[in-house]
């Protein structure tokens, strides 16, 4: 059994991979060449970053301009800060915008809990357990990803209507507890399969049943997959428009994307300023979740494998 080292987060790898050049044998620490390479890399990354976030910068800049001016000003430069988009936009709809954020938060938290619970269970079954028809069920699971949702919408709506769940959050959250998001099941299957079976065997020999292996061995090692699932669920559910559109009829229950759409009116003027301002406001939780959540993404395998 080999030992696997704990992988740190920001360990500088450059020097290790390239190895010391002969004339550098006396130097410790980064050389001029290393620093130059690092500077170039940073320059490239910064340039790429600007390209990546230019649209976001434009969004933020536009949210600080009055609506009439937004589409006539191409640049990013701001003369004044027009904060009314924020202060008025918050109250522009039937309810203060915080109401919609709370609604979205409820749906999102429920969805994350559901996905984490149900998808890990199903993934463990597919990846580690041998049972009859496993291949068939796996194929069916993938199949469920392939049918465009526009044709599923109406039959599902009829189903949920028959159950009396229209105008509740139930159709938005309950499916997550039933592992309907095959994307995450498949993701976790692939991660689990990357974990050496020796660990299972070791636990089995120690007398653990499947549940213990799952909860005590697998789950801790699946950190990145779990973090990925949580983050992606958050972002996708937060931005989901169509499902809340058809299931939530009472405006007080609207989630953020539906509320944002209310600012637009294709047949008259739209309140772009307020819509952009509220879009920026709703992007903040997304950004924060990712900023803090990515720490868990990078925890590598930390395990002592030895006996």
């Amino acid at each position, binding site marked *: 059994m080999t030992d696997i080292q704990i*992988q740190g987060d*920001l360990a*500088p*790898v450059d020097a290790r*991979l390239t190895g010391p050049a002969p004339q550098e044998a006396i130097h410790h620490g980064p050389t001029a060449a290393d620093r130059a390479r690092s500077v170039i*890399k*940073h320059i490239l990354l910064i340039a*790429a970053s600007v390209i*990546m976030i230019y*649209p*976001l910068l434009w*969004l933020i800049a536009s949210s600080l301009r009055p609506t009439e001016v937004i589409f006539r000003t191409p640049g990013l430069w701001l003369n004044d800060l027009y904060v009314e988009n924020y202060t008025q936009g918050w109250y522009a709809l039937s309810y203060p915008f915080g109401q919609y954020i709370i609604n979205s938060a409820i749906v999102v938290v429920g969805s994350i809990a559901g996905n984490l619970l*149900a998808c890990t269970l*199903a993934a463990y*079954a*597919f990846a580690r*357990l*041998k*049972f009859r028809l496993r*291949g068939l069920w796996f194929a069916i*699971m*993938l*199949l*469920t*990803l*392939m*049918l*465009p949702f*526009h*044709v*599923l919408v*109406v*039959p*599902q709506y009829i189903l949920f209507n028959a159950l009396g769940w229209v105008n509740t959050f139930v159709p938005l959250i309950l499916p997550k507890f*039933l*592992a*309907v998001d095959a994307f995450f099941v*498949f*993701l976790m299957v*692939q991660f689990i*399969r*990357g974990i*050496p079976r020796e660990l299972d065997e070791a636990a089995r020999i120690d007398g653990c*049943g*499947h549940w213990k292996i*799952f909860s005590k061995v697998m789950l801790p090692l699946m950190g*990145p997959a779990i*973090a990925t699932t949580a983050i*992606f669920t958050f*972002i996708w559910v937060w*931005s989901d428009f169509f499902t809340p559109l058809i299931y939530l009829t009472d405006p007080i229950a609207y989630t953020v994307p539906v509320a944002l759409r209310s600012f637009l009116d294709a047949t008259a003027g739209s309140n772009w300023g307020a*819509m952009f301002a509220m*879009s920026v406001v709703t*992007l903040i939780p*997304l*950004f924060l979740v*990712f900023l803090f959540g*990515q720490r868990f*993404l990078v925890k*590598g395998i930390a395990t002592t494998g030895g006996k």
Partner: protein
Amino acid sequence: MSAVSELSTIHRVKAKTPEEKRLAAREAGRDNKAGYLFLLPWLIGLVVIVAGPMFASLYLSFTNYSLIQAPEFIGLDNYVRMFNDPRLLKSLSVTFIYVIVGVPAQLIVALAIAMLLNEGMKGLAIYRSIFYLPSMLGASVAIALLWRQMFEADGVVNQILRLFGFQATTSWIADPQFALWTIILLHVWTFGSPMVIFLAGLRQIPGMYYEAASVDGASKWAQFRKITLPLLSPIIFFNLVLQIINAFQSFTQAYVVSNGTGGPADSTLFYTLYLYQRGFVQFQMGYASAMAWLLVVIIAAFTAINFYFSKRWVFYGD
């Protein structure tokens, strides 16, 4: 161990003595029970929420269904009509181009950036968040509108090109030759999702492999080929399969950028956009359902091919 054989067969150890046979049977039975128990939430979800509507939509594909009145059985008429529908063929070709060009392009960029960010460096967390941002925004109406504006005749892209001396007067977004490419570019721009998944996968590769290799004098490129690629292959495979499945069903970006029309001369008429038009705008949900099931067949074929070839290059630790 190949992915396909892993999934499709049950590993049977040759049990010789009755004692062994009994043990083997008990093992299999034990896994059976445990397997279905772990699978229970998913099975319930499948049966209650997914299977019913899926069968319903299959049934609808054989009907005339306006959403407003009850469906009326018409047999294979929808499928026959599909083969004579020039817009359907056009939407298929648009979608194929998008998948065949957009998916590899996006994945290559995602992997490259993920590798770049995998090495520790100052500001890593910030860079990672910045590169992930577009994925968070990608589906938003505001960004798609801005994207359209950027590629207009006087948009930002042309302004920058003019700075470099090009005669940039084409309206990329209004020209049927180029409109699709702006959407492909938008797809590549939102490489954050597969990038994050690649990062998570890269992080699971123990650093000591790289150390050992560099001690042996292996170049970075050799390390990439011999260590990174094989150990990352399950994740690459995952991203490939799922990005293809998702790309075939891409809807929102085309919808917003083309204002729901499918762009200049149907050049951005993605398959699901056309499906949506038929189903919800023209009240022909039966036809749309038939289109949906054709798409299932196409995607299933691509996925099956993916799985078949994965035997050759995907390397699992178990």
